[in-house]
């Protein structure tokens, strides 16, 4: 559980930062006639987003989330700044209650 949360968080922040760079640095430069940054960062974000999808999906299944919050989590990786907001929301709303519900770290995760 804790490992799944950590993996999700790391990927949420990494994907989020790369997407912000792509949208607020790469795209303006591309418009200005220098497409190199947008091209390279775009491919990097594409690959990172696949990893983000997998980790967010694993976490959502461990938390037993319903369809709507899962879809929000998965799509957050495609909208600038959204990963940060959604990560905070998921933490407050689902991760913290789930961690609080675990009596001790040694307990197996219940699905």
């Amino acid at each position, binding site marked *: 559980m804790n490992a799944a949360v950590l993996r999700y968080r790391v990927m949420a922040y990494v994907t989020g930062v790369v997407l912000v760079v792509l949208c607020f640095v790469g795209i303006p430069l591309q418009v200005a006639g220098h497409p190199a940054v947008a091209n390279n960062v775009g491919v990097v974000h594409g690959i990172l987003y696949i990893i983000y999808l997998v980790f967010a999906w694993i976490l959502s299944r461990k938390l037993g*989330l*319903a369809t709507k919050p899962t879809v929000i989590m998965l799509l957050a990786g495609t909208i600038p700044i959204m990963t940060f907001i959604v990560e905070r929301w998921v933490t407050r709303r689902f991760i913290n209650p789930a961690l609080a519900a675990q009596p001790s770290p040694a307990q197996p995760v219940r699905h």
Partner: protein
Amino acid sequence: MENAAQVGLAPERAAGPVWRFLIQPRWLGWHLLMAVSFWGMLWLGDWQLHRALAGNGLSWAYTFEWPLFAGFAVVFWAKTIKDEFRIRRDGPPGTLAGSSDSDDLPVSVRPVQVSVGTAEDDDDEELSAYNAYLARLNDEVKRHGRWHGLRS
């Protein structure tokens, strides 16, 4: 309160076979969304393939990425439906094992315990009115937590 009933945990007996939920309007909406996004992503992959063949080297990455996303959408859809079948057959997790799962939940998401009222409660008009009010509130929020992301 010996006769406090856990209304929130009462098992729901749906009429008809289990698969019926698949043709509820909300689920039909999900099916439609899945079909549109699946074909949309395949179409985007095809578009990137044509761009790649036209000489845009970068498009090769997206040519493989879009079908991957389309496949992921299908897996997501299938798993969601499978989970839903399991939940509808077995009831929410914990009710079969007989353990009170809700005790582990944070207070804010526990099912509300509602007193159904006894004969002597009925003498007290104010109390029975209050109990009716609690029962109504519990009814209103019963399936609410689920929409907000909790499967119980």
